[in-house]
């Protein structure tokens, strides 16, 4: 490009590298800490390079059980988080693609009422209706269940709006052609609409998986039993500053393990994720 010297490009590269180091450093440092013994961690400053306790620490956390959590292993926590994140992502996609399909491709009384009922929930995040929602959970016996962790979070307007927006771009001729060829609503949905939405579904899956994995307030409220905690809540329970026996080396391990799965999802599905994020939210 005109007006851009190679010097300014080099400065740009250097700045980016420094920026990335700052962004990555907290995670790198936690990883380093997770490979040292408790004694080393408690005596700052911590060395900048990984130590030799990698296998011992990770093995103990994953399979040995954590005292602060009543002997529950980090493996259980990881499993819980995976179930919850997958449940939220797939559940949301499932119910919102169906309702968007109904709203766009059918004409029926109350159609717009339903649309607005769904749309308005954008304005009611969990945080603003904590107590009454909790009471509903108690009444329905959903405390400490996977259903309790997943179902209240799968109804959201964003996914429905996204699918509606996308369905509106599908030309009417396509629907007409399908109908002339004798395809019913189910056939049209399965053979035409789903394949066309594949990219959108992939993008949405990544965003919703991260959303589910990083939930905090809701799992905090609806789980009491240690073996039903998600990893984020489990981690919070392991830490106590007043209490001298926080197992910091295991806390570090859990921290890293709670970061790895969603990061892998984001990095490996980056192409869809970036497009989905930038296009859908705008």
């Amino acid at each position, binding site marked *: 490009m005109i007006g851009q010297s190679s010097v*300014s490009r080099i400065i740009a590269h250097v700045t980016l590298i420094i920026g*990335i180091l700052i962004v990555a450093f907290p995670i790198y440092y*936690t990883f380093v800490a997770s490979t040292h013994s408790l004694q080393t961690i408690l005596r700052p400053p911590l060395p900048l390079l990984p130590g030799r306790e990698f296998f011992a620490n990770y093995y103990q956390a994953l399979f040995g059980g954590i005292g602060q959590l009543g002997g529950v292993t980090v493996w259980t926590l990881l499993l819980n988080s995976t179930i919850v994140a997958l449940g939220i992502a797939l559940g949301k996609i499932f*119910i919102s693609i169906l309702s968007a399909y109904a709203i766009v*491709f059918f004409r029926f009384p109350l159609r717009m009422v339903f649309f607005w009922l769904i749309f308005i929930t954008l304005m*009611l995040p969990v945080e603003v209706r904590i107590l009454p929602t909790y009471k509903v959970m108690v009444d329905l016996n959903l405390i400490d269940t996977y259903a309790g962790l997943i179902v209240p979070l799968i109804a959201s307007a964003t996914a429905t709006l996204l699918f509606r927006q996308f369905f509106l771009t599908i030309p009417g001729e396509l629907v007409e052609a399908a*109908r002339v060829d004798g395809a019913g609503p189910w056939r049209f949905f399965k053979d035409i609409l789903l394949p066309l939405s594949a990219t959108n579904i992939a993008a949405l899956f990544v965003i919703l998986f991260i959303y589910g994995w*990083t939930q905090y307030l809701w799992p905090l*409220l609806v789980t009491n039993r240690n073996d039903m905690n998600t990893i984020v809540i489990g981690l919070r329970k392991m830490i106590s500053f007043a209490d001298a026996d926080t197992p910091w080396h295991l806390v570090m391990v859990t921290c890293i393990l709670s970061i790895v799965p*969603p990061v892998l999802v984001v990095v490996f599905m980056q192409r869809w994720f970036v497009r989905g994020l930038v296009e859908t939210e705008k």
Partner: protein
Amino acid sequence: MSPRVTFPNKFLPYLLVAPQLAITLVFFYWPASQAIYQSTLREDPFGLDSAFVGLDNFRRVLSDPNYLNSIQVTVIFSVATAVLAMAVAMFLAVMADKVIRGKGFYRTLMIWPYAVAPAIAGMLWLFMFNPSMGTFAYMLRSAGIYWDPLLNGPQAMLLVIVAAAWKQISYNFLFFVAGLQAIPKTLVEAAAIDGAGETKRFWTIIFPLLAPTTFFLLVINTTYAFFDTFGIIHAVTGGGPGKATETLVYKVYNDGFVNLILGESAAQSVILMVIVIALTAVQFRYVEKKVHYG
């Protein structure tokens, strides 16, 4: 536009919207209406009886110095988080727009904090800066700086702001990169031929043209700082020391679940709802405008 081609079923569409509608009614509308109802009641200390008190809870909440403090804390926290996260992200995105080789590489390395839960982000920073074992706290102390975010309010605030902003950088970065790519290169080159330096080009061409992205991100970041950062506050400071980092959402949780002041907590929920509705309205007005913009 001609009417859409549709399927002529009578029953099927109801079946299709039923799951979402059922969940929405049970977990959104019913609790939200309960919150509004409860905000007009006051329970006795044992939770045995409640009486209708009209708008009295709102009056109490809005005249409570703790609540006013919490509003102030939330505003400072949100503005600082949004500005810090956006400034750093915009700077890095402008740099990323300049490089030719390695764009994808930088992007990959930049996006993954997006996947870190806010609460975990808070803990990562707490490990580095907590007074008893944090390496950076140790270095600050060696440098003669008194550092204790567990006892010092402003320092605790600083810590949660940095942690919250850190997590949001990658998200903003992606949007700024996309925004920068949409700016026609010919405009920038024309300015370069006319003799405008890089700084001048940024402030007179790139920055104004990025305004729609910036404004969009401002709304998103404010919403994030208002609601999604509950985890950071809860995990790092617990609203303390004193009430130095007690945000509005944290106070609703604390009053409702820990202190069990139900009526006032519900009144706070309703006030929050009004704030969300305002934020959403701003966001949608903007989205509509943007369609005409470009």
